[in-house]
């Protein structure tokens, strides 16, 4: 069973008034309304090129999501058999935001239209989403990804390897105390309590996933100039130290 989020930490349950400006709240509210209406017709993926979509997947998604339900823990939930699956429903995945779980409990399932809207602008649909991804702004990339992901999620495409970090780098043992010091640079923006509203939550991630994501920024595979600049001067030991430290913090809820 999924745990229900504590109302005190859940922006949606508090009526979205907290720290979000009015405009965003209004937009958020309508997006939530959309999210909980069950049975939206599935829009068809138009003209997407799955081969190009596979590249988007391996560059942007695969460092956090697996297609294999048995894969070891990643930062995000596995995406096997996504279409038709309720929102926020992978049994053992601890990192969903409360609103996404609630939407799923209210009967919302992933269909093409909802998936497309979420991938285009995750925060507009779920302002507290814990997915650390700003959205696929390029319409072509989005359609290409849809064209690849939907069959792949059903097991109908060759799995793409995605961005991977060398095993010896993943094997570096993080120095926790150093990680705590370095983490202070992160917590100016990324909250230690795991809360997220516009800046992703990075607490409680599996260490390998954390290292992979940081290296992807450092190699400029993942977009976001701030993170590319911050990670540019993190050595492998420093990334390992940060991964070890943030793994000790609770995922948090929102």
């Amino acid at each position: 069973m999924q745990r229900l989020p504590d109302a005190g930490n859940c922006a949606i349950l508090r009526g979205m008034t907290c720290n979000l400006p009015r405009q965003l709240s209004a937009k958020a509210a309508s997006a939530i309304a959309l999210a909980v209406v069950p049975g939206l017709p599935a829009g068809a993926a138009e003209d997407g090129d799955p081969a190009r979509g596979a590249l988007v997947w391996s560059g942007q998604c695969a460092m956090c999501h697996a297609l294999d339900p048995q894969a070891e823990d990643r930062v995000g939930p596995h995406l096997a058999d996504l279409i038709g699956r309720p929102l926020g429903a992978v049994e053992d995945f601890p990192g969903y935001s409360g609103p996404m779980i609630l939407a799923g409990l209210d009967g919302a399932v992933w269909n093409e239209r909802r998936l497309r809207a979420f991938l285009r602008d995750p925060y507009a649909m779920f302002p507290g989403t814990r997915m650390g991804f700003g959205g696929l702004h390029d319409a072509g990339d989005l359609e290409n990804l849809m064209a690849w992901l939907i069959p792949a999620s059903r097991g109908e495409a060759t799995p793409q390897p995605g961005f991977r970090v060398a095993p010896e780098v993943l094997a570096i043992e993080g120095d926790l105390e150093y990680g705590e010091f370095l983490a202070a640079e992160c917590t100016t923006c990324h909250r230690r309590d795991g809360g997220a509203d516009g800046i992703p939550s990075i607490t409680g991630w599996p260490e390998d996933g954390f290292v992979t994501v940081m290296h992807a920024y450092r190699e400029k595979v993942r977009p976001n100039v701030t993170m590319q600049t911050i990670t540019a001067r993190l050595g492998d030991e420093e990334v390992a130290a940060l991964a070890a430290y943030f793994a000790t913090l609770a995922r948090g809820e929102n």
Partner: protein
Amino acid sequence: MTTETRNGADAARGLGRRSFLGSAVAGTAMLGAPAVLGQGRPRLVVVGGGSGGATVARYVAMQSAGAIDVTLIEPSRMYYTCYFSNLYLGGFWAFEDLAHSYATLASTHGVNVRHDWAVGVDRDAQTVALAGGGSVGYDRLVLSPGIDFVDGAVPGWDEAAANLMPHAYKPGTQTALLKAQVEAMPEGGLFAMVAPPNPYRCPPGPYERISMVAHMLKQGNPTAKILLVDPKPGFSKQALFEEGWARHYPGMIERIGPDLGGDMVEVNPAEMTVSIDGMIEAVDVCNVIPAQKAGRIAALAGLTNDDGWVPVDPFTMKARADAAIHVLGDASQQGDMPKSGYSANSQAKVAANVIRHELTDARLFPARYANTCWSLIAPEDGVKVGASYEATEEKIASVDSFISQPGEDAELRAETYRESIGWYNGIVADMFG
């Protein structure tokens, strides 16, 4: 200067990344030497509970878990952030949402919060005198008092005139006054800003403010005009702001740079006029942001240079003149970092580590700094500039930097704006949570 403090500063200096990561054995020898001073719990006193001061008090108290006695001296019961005060002007943020209380610092982290003014520092006796009477002794002192204005910087203006011509450049109610004045402007009226010369807090701040005032006027008073009188030839994120102003507020904003007399400005608050190189202009609202210097207590402590700022050691954020005193944030002169809340917060963490190393047996790590400044130009049109920094003998030096680009798509700008909201909630949690 005690031997202990000199050793601490030297250890921090020797601690380049290479030497830190190089040898565990050498590292232990160098890092493991505590320098606990005197008997009883060592005492840290922090003056100023803003971006630098609240952060250093929280980190030292939280991470030393009671081993260091932390006192924070701050006159205000609530800290009103300057960051997002422009968004409050623009109607995107509530005034109450700028306010943050010291309660958690006291109740959760055990910081002894004293709502008082520091009025003097006796560096020989290592005590801070309080306006309310008495003094507190310290083993380490942090000053993070923010800015004060340079007297006579804008002829005709002094702090007594701030009711008529607000600066709205320190935490508190000045921003509410400025907003009320803009709302009361006559139709088609004139808003003027006198921008400050370098260096000053928040380089993009005046220009974000121009954007937010323009946004307000566009809603309720679209024929009003904005006059920006600027002593500087150029300014932070200039291409981005000017592109945004042309797009969102065409014809509304006129900037007078030094080539046209923007550096020859006088004001007359009683008459509500601004004189630019002798040309007198009647204005309806005038936001005067004068030249700045370190908060007064830094000069009273005898730490400021001729320019009014405190030179600091880039490895430790200690005042160059006194190894028992760290100076953070706007008041410090450190090199390449802009005077920002983000910078002050970043510097506070380096100081906290040095303080814990010197007062207890905490490990010392190499200094590292970062900054990002987000600005909002119009609804959903956010931009950012930022950099990472390292300590060198001479200064805190920029290593790598980035800036938003003109012509970015609307979704990226909206994402950047959203990021700024996350940053705001992040930094206040990092200071007061």
